[in-house]
């Protein structure tokens, strides 16, 4: 019997909750997150009509949190895909080819790890200007170091295996060996690090939007909602609490899912293949 994996289940449920909210936002609410502003209902506490209350312009916080999930998940997942592509191609090729290329990639990875990624993303955003595409680029270029390291160490341990040597003697090209022999055998650890990466990208998006460099108001990103709610924190705390809670649940969900996956994919946790 496999041990009950609480992290995996809890992380899976929380992640699923957020994904459902994002995908079915249009069905879960009848209001529009930007244009359904009604100053008659401004700063109303949570009630039967507005479950999470309203903000200073009378927009439904519940609706905005749901649509905010779309932005957060898009940023989290797309930027992590960019990170994974960069990290995997650099890490696998560095370990496989070795030599000066390996030294170069190692140096680059160390530099990336030494720069606080949020500051780096801030700098890129400052150059590119706010908006969703520049957010994806900024976060996609700054968080690949761990993926790269894991890909590199996995490749180092895999490339001495018989099947990799056999592929070389059978005439496979280097790229084909990396794609068919090395990559599929490191899916486990890469999946784990990517899941954790989505969580940190969601957090980074919120931080950048909070600072006004990410998604600009009036579009409902959780970070920009927090910016707007900052001044109302005393009179209408719900406008800050619910987007904050949404960030918390999303990041916690992805982190638990990552931890759970790591345990799930660890062969020592298995009792039978």
């Amino acid at each position: 019997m496999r041990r009950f994996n609480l992290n995996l289940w809890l992380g899976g449920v929380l992640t699923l909750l957020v994904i459902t909210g994002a995908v079915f936002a249009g069905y879960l609410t009848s209001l529009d997150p930007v244009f359904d502003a009604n100053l008659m209902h401004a700063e109303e506490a949570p009630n039967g009509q507005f479950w999470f209350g309203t903000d200073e312009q009378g927009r439904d916080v519940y609706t905005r949190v749901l649509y905010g999930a779309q932005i957060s998940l898009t940023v989290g997942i797309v930027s992590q895909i960019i990170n994974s592509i960069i990290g995997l191609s650099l890490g696998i090729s560095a370990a496989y080819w070795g030599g000066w290329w390996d030294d170069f990639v190692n140096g680059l990875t160390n530099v990336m790890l030494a720069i606080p990624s949020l500051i780096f993303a801030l700098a890129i955003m400052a150059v590119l200007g706010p908006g969703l595409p520049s957010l994806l680029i900024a976060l996609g270029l700054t968080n690949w170091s761990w993926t790269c390291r894991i890909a590199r160490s996995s490749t180092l341990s895999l490339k001495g295996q018989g099947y990799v040597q056999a592929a070389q003697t059978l005439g496979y090209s280097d790229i084909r060996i990396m794609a068919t022999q090395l990559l599929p055998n490191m899916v486990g650890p890469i999946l784990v690090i990517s899941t954790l990466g989505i969580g940190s990208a969601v957090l980074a998006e919120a931080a950048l939007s909070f600072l006004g460099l990410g998604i600009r108001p009036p579009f409902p990103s959780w970070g920009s909602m927090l910016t707007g709610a900052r001044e109302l924190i005393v009179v209408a705390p719900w406008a800050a609490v619910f987007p904050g809670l949404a960030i918390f649940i999303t990041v916690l969900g992805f982190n638990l899912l990552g931890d759970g996956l790591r345990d799930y994919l660890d062969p020592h946790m298995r009792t039978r293949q």
Partner: protein
Amino acid sequence: MTVPLLEIRDLHVQFPVGGSLLGHNKRLLRAVNGVNLSLAQGECLSIVGESGCGKSTTALAVMGLQAPTSGDILVDGKTIIGDATLSRMDRARIAQMVFQDPYASLNPRQTVHQSLSAPLRLHGASKSEANDRIADILKKVGLLPEHAARYAHEFSGGQRQRIGIARALILDPRILMLDEPVSALDVSVRAQIINLLLDLQEDLSLSFVMISHDLGVVEHMSDRVAVMYFGQIVEVGRWDAIFANPTHPYTRKLIATIPDPDTILHPHRNRATAAAPPPPAGFYFHPETTDRPDVYAAATPSDLIEVAPDHFVRCAT
């Protein structure tokens, strides 16, 4: 004399070891130190020796998995190393390798069919040609066509080694490099794999280079035997000459390690090796009188002497 199928000429493989940050005191580990070998068509040549003697490095150099420092490797009298030579694809049709560990030599994420069809497709076979070839090769190595749909972990060690052999044969190579082909297997299945290899050698007119330290297997399979010691060939000859009349002291020591049931039954009967003549003076290696050879030293000039027809022994210069 006809041109040998495979010829290794004065092969050297060196690895830099140690050395300070600025590159001082860098020493070269001479893993393979001037090896000359040749393999005739249809022959099984065994390279024996202890771990770390350079026999696997020699094999990897022939396979193109390890770049030689110097020396030449020829197939049909044409060199296969250096710039102006064969691509990886051409090389794949010359020699293939059967690996020691059947558990690490199959990709756990691929079915047998996938790992056999990919090289065929790469070398230009159509889908149906590939399928026919896979069914044929699986039958040849004693597996069933329906095994193709399974993953590596669904097989036993012996079956995995059969798959490894099938993969090595799938491109119809002329030389099979056997790197300890049975040493990771259960004793009960070793004989099956050895007999399979001997049958395949006859059916497909293959030539084998076998790397081994299991002298029982070597005696059973080889036509010729080369004894390697610290990167050099110390004795080479026909198997019966090597086993009946081992001349180099290191070869004698190796052969003395073969478990012999007769010695238990007849404790007073001496080992066959004791009957051999004492080694001539000045052998490169003499365990009683010299220290272990220095692996960092450059090779001594070629000094294999012929003690009998096709039986060479290394002697110090």
